């Protein structure tokens, strides 16, 4: 009887999280549909200007998308190589004692509030970059992207390390017994074998960067800017959403609805990345 009650309560808790998620997606889609009744989808996807709150508003998501992808690219340029090297070191070279200390520390790093990283970018990294790159504006994609990269290193390193450690020891032995060094074994046997798992780690890192908000909102500036130059300021989808959501928009207005259209776009992008990561990991499991 008591058991049964516990089971029901637990089920309700589990079910409620699913229901809430579905409800959120429902609201996003519902409000976005209202938005797309006034703004044609094709215009939303192709217009190159995003000024929804101006007197003559334009609703092109491209500048925000561009800002998001550009910061993510910068982040990946930082986190990719460093995360990979860290993973190779931890998985193939670190003594077990070192790994036991470093791995949880890495995971702890992902608990640092992102607003801290944001101010780190704005108050430390940007001034530093300004010494190297003259004329760098106070808000810029580069600084935000670099710090975002630093932020996702632990994530990429930790997940990649898991994938590499899952490679059977027999393959390392096979390589070493052929006279390969540990470095050759790591890069020519272990890494290629774990490649789908490592790729999944990268994709999840990207997905995280895409959804990351505080760093870009604080350090990249908030003007939508269709540019490929990381030295310029730019707004990302997330930065736009916080900026506008904090403002005072009348419920049901088109400005209000842009939040949902932008949110839905973001959701779809991260969803695609997560599905890709899921697929890659499934492939990796199949192989080993």
């Amino acid at each position, binding site marked *: 009887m008591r058991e049964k009650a516990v089971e029901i309560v637990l089920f309700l808790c589990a079910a409620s999280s699913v229901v809430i998620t579905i409800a959120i997606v429902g609201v996003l889609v519902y409000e976005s549909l209202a938005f797309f009744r006034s703004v044609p989808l094709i215009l939303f996807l192709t217009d190159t200007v995003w000024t929804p709150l101006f007197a003559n508003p334009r609703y092109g998501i491209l500048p925000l998308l561009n800002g998001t992808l550009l910061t993510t690219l910068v982040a990946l340029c930082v986190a990719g190589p460093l995360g990979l090297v860290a993973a190779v070191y931890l998985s193939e070279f670190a*003594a077990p004692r070192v790994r036991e200390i470093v791995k949880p520390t890495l995971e702890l790093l992902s608990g640092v509030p992102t607003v801290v990283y944001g101010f780190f970018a704005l108050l430390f990294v940007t001034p530093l970059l300004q010494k190297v790159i003259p004329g760098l504006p106070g808000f810029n994609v580069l600084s935000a992207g670099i710090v975002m990269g630093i932020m996702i290193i632990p994530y990429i390193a930790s997940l990649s390390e898991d994938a590499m450690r899952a490679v*059977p020891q*027999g*393959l*390392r*032995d*096979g*390589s*070493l*017994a*052929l*006279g*390969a*060094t540990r470095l*050759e074994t790591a890069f*020519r*046997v272990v890494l*290629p*074998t774990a490649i789908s798992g490592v790729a999944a780690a990268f994709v999840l890192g990207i997905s995280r960067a895409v959804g990351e908000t505080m760093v870009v909102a604080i350090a990249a500036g908030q003007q939508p800017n269709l540019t490929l130059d990381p030295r310029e300021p730019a707004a990302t989808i997330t930065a736009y959403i916080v900026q506008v959501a904090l403002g005072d928009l009348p419920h049901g207005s088109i400005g209000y609805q842009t939040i949902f259209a932008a949110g839905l776009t973001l959701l779809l992008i991260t969803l695609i990345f997560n599905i890709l990561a899921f697929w890659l990991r499934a492939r990796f499991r199949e*192989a*080993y």
Partner: protein
Amino acid sequence: MNQRVEVAAPVVAAGSDDARGRPIKIVNRDVNVWYGDKRALHDVSIDIPDRAVTAFIGPSGCGKSTFLRCMNRMNDTIPSARVTGTIEIDGQDIHDRSLDVVQLRARVGMVFQKPNPFAKSIYENVAYGPRIHGLARSKAELDAIVEQSLKRAALWDEAKDRLSQPGTGLSGGQQQRLCIARAIAVDPEVILMDEPASALDPIATARIEDLIDELRQNYTIVIVTHNMQQAARVSQRTAFFHLGKLVEEASTERMFTAPRDKRTQDYITGRFG
């Protein structure tokens, strides 16, 4: 058996029938292995004849694999393992500081119990070692090495039309022959095999055994097996290990017809192990 051997002038394997007249390839003297505090091998001294098959038999856990791994210094990769004693290949001490373990392992190949092809194509599996050691100057040379190695490992006919397909897609027996081809590709002198057929069905096992018999024309082979029929079929010399000690070593024929030690007799007649 335990007296010091003059290494400079290779000695003839004494008491051997089939391997008689063969020079000694590997001289092992008082080899001990510890895993942490646990001693796994006690003063093992044995000569391995050149271009012949030497089988190590004995109950599970008696140190056969441990001893095998001494001869290409694979125990170096196990942090807790410590090896003492002298091992000389062609008169050269393999623990000598001037000896590069990478070169040693190119000379002394190894085939493992569980087939372990890399997650690469059949071609790339075989080409891996030659690439690492820079053995081929051109693609054509590499192709030739791959073909030659697969032929020697009796896999060419089955693999030649699917060289670009993954090695992991082969059957277990084919995978093991691929691993043999991979070892052969770096042109070793010695091939160590640790129960190479224990994961295979009887037909695949028979093929591997035939292959081993052919390979001894060109290579010094040491094979660990828990299968005494296999030892009798493929080897010229047999060594029996028990509880980390080398109990007895003789020509395979004598070992199986007239073992001297009581423990060997018991093992061979199936009374334990």
